[in-house]
């Protein structure tokens, strides 16, 4: 009894700390950690209906062998990587350039910031619905404008050369605002004295951007690179909203379907949850590899103050 009454201040603080952290920790375990292991378990079995999983000890890697022989899975991996390599670098370059432009004290900069941030708060379903109408080959706004200046109608959604680009455009447009806000925060934190020194040396705007701004905000760039890349590798909702479960033409679907879209199809349309679990484990490994590469590479180009 006397012991608890005389808990030291330090122990009391710890107790409160654990108490506050507990709900999040509990949620993390129940909703993130446990499903990861459950999915791993499921990926080794075959699915029955309604979530029943049966593991056959003779055929533990059956789903994985089937996966590696399934051409649609390879197409999905390829599409996801192409999508990532299109949308992430472009998005980051645009974010850095636009953020540095919007960090200046020009008139109306607040309006620009709001305009660029608005896509972030719009619902993804609404965004893709509007873009789908705009991309319509016959009646869409984009093709109407192109025809008005004499160009050919482009089938944005159904031409295998353009479909991933169309998705990437929507992804960049909707994610740019968030990256810009983070970059603006980082750029305004750069000490003015560096720029003054550069002005004395006669540096141009672009030179200042490349040699002063970028290195000094590189931790933030690293952050948006990692989050942008992971988000792009997990891309599902834009493809699902623009194409639905399938649009009936195999070549187009094979050119645009991402890993997560294939996962959704396997888990919820075909109801083969074990195969889907194996697929998502492969996706997990791919994302992890890319993230490790980035973390190792950061030593080369990210400057931390310490």
């Amino acid at each position: 009894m006397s012991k608890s009454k005389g808990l030291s201040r330090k122990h009391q603080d710890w107790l409160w700390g654990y108490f506050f952290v507990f709900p999040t920790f509990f949620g993390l375990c129940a909703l993130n950690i446990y499903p990861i292991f459950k999915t791993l378990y499921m990926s080794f079995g075959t699915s029955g209906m309604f979530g029943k999983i049966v593991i056959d000890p003779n055929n533990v890697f059956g789903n994985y062998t089937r996966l590696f022989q399934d051409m649609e899975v390879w197409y999905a991996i390829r599409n996801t990587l192409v999508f990532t390599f299109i949308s992430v670098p472009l998005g980051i370059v645009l974010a850095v350039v636009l953020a540095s432009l919007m960090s200046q004290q020009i008139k109306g900069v607040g309006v620009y910031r709001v305009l660029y941030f608005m896509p972030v708060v719009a619902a993804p379903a609404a965004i893709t619905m509007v873009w789908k109408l705009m991309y319509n080959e016959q009646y869409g706004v984009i093709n109407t404008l192109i025809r008005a200046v004499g160009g050919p109608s482009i089938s944005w959604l159904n031409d295998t050369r353009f479909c991933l680009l169309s998705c990437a455009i929507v992804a960049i447009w909707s994610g740019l605002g968030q990256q810009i806000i983070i970059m603006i925060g980082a750029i305004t934190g750069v000490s003015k004295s560096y720029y003054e020194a550069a002005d004395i040396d006669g540096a141009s705007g672009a030179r200042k951007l490349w040699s002063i701004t970028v290195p000094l905000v590189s931790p933030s760039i690293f952050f948006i690179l990692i989050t942008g890349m992971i988000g792009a590798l997990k891309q599902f909702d834009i493809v699902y909203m623009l194409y639905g479960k399938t649009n009936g033409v195999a070549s187009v679907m094979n050119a645009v379907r991402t890993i997560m879209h294939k996962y959704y199809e396997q888990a919820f349309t075909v109801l083969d949850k074990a195969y889907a679990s194996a697929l998502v484990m492969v996706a997990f490994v791919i994302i992890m590899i890319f993230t490790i590469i980035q973390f190792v590479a950061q030593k080369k180009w990210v400057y931390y103050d310490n």
Partner: protein
Amino acid sequence: MKKILAVLLAGMMVTSLVACGGETTTESTTEETTTEETTTEETTTEEGGETTATEGGGVLPADHTATLTYVSWNDTQNVQNQATIDKFNEYYPNIQIEISYSAWNEYWNKLEAAASSGTLNDLVTQHTNNIEMYVNNGFVEDLTNLADYGFDFSYDNHPEGVKRLFRFDDKMWGVPKDIDCIVMVYNKDMFDAAGLDYPTDEWTWDDLTDACEVLTDKDNNKYGFAFRNDQQGGYASFLYQNGGGLLTEDGTKALVDSDESIEAMEWWMDGYAKYSPTQAMLTESTMDALIQNDTLAMCTDGNWALNTYYENEELADKFDIAALPHPADGEHATISNGLALCVTTGLPEEKLEAAKQFAAYFGSKEGQEVAAMGPSIPCYDGVVDLWAEQNKDLFRTEAVTSQLNNGYGVQWVGTELKTQWNQALETHIGYIYDGNDVATELKAAAEEMNAILAQEGK
């Protein structure tokens, strides 16, 4: 002080998280269990067979109280369902039935998640694609003895075609709700402009292609017929018309690789190349939009979807329907399907009785007649003519009645693993629409389908 405030705030956030997580159905079932415990005594005495039949013939007492949830995927059909519920409430004012609606795209995902977690709605609209899976896993109540619930209910009054879909092990697992078929929708203005006679219910495939020749003008963005990539609403009927089909009669093997099926699909794809808007166009714009713009002259659609056309002011006078054309040396056939109302297992006694009572009313003559305002057709024998009467100003109902009453409907079949073999088939059809050879793709599809079908019943 600060710590107390922080704890309160954290507590509020956590409870708001937890509270939002539950569905309203789980909340209502927890309410119901408390009320049903107090009334179990009364219901068990009724179970003893004392029929206090109300006027009109239900067996439960008129003040039987329960709240049931009922889910379907078609907002328009819920108008018809609500009509049945309202009339039912004249007999049983205290049985509250709340209809909810999930869009078709998400309906089966949500249902499967609900079934796996034990939160299925009490009354569920079921479909032949999925019913066997739910029955075999014990989620559907056995409704064979529904005639015990009065309202002159009898399964004899429902068409065999629909009953067959929901009968397993000689037991009935759902009350047949409606019957449907596929019809051909045509654009009267485009036919007038081309100087052609409107399609009749006796058209052959050659009549169709002849009309398409005249109507199609791709340079001017005009197309004759939408040969779209859709199984139930598109090519499947035509496979059966030629003597082929999706599965064999007993549902154990694929039939898509038979010569007749291949021939029909080749005719279909030939039409697609010559007279049809591309599949890309059809996914970007709906068929009613294309008809409205005088881009498309004819398409196929299910009768349950006709409200898309007649509720559109621009389109209501412009369209009409006809029976599907048939090959000159083949038969009339149209894919016919029927939905059923099913009761979920595991309901407390009071709700189960109420659900079965409603199911009996739903399948009775009066319950079905009250829902005849369309667009779906209640399947009780003879009600289709009542439906035709109520809808005759909207479109040529003979297109539907001639197909259904003459037995041209071909039952659209589902099996336990349909989700899997359907995916295999649809993948190969997707390649056919890409330009691959029809025979090769259909044979490959049949091989995969047979491998999956062989696993059923194990």
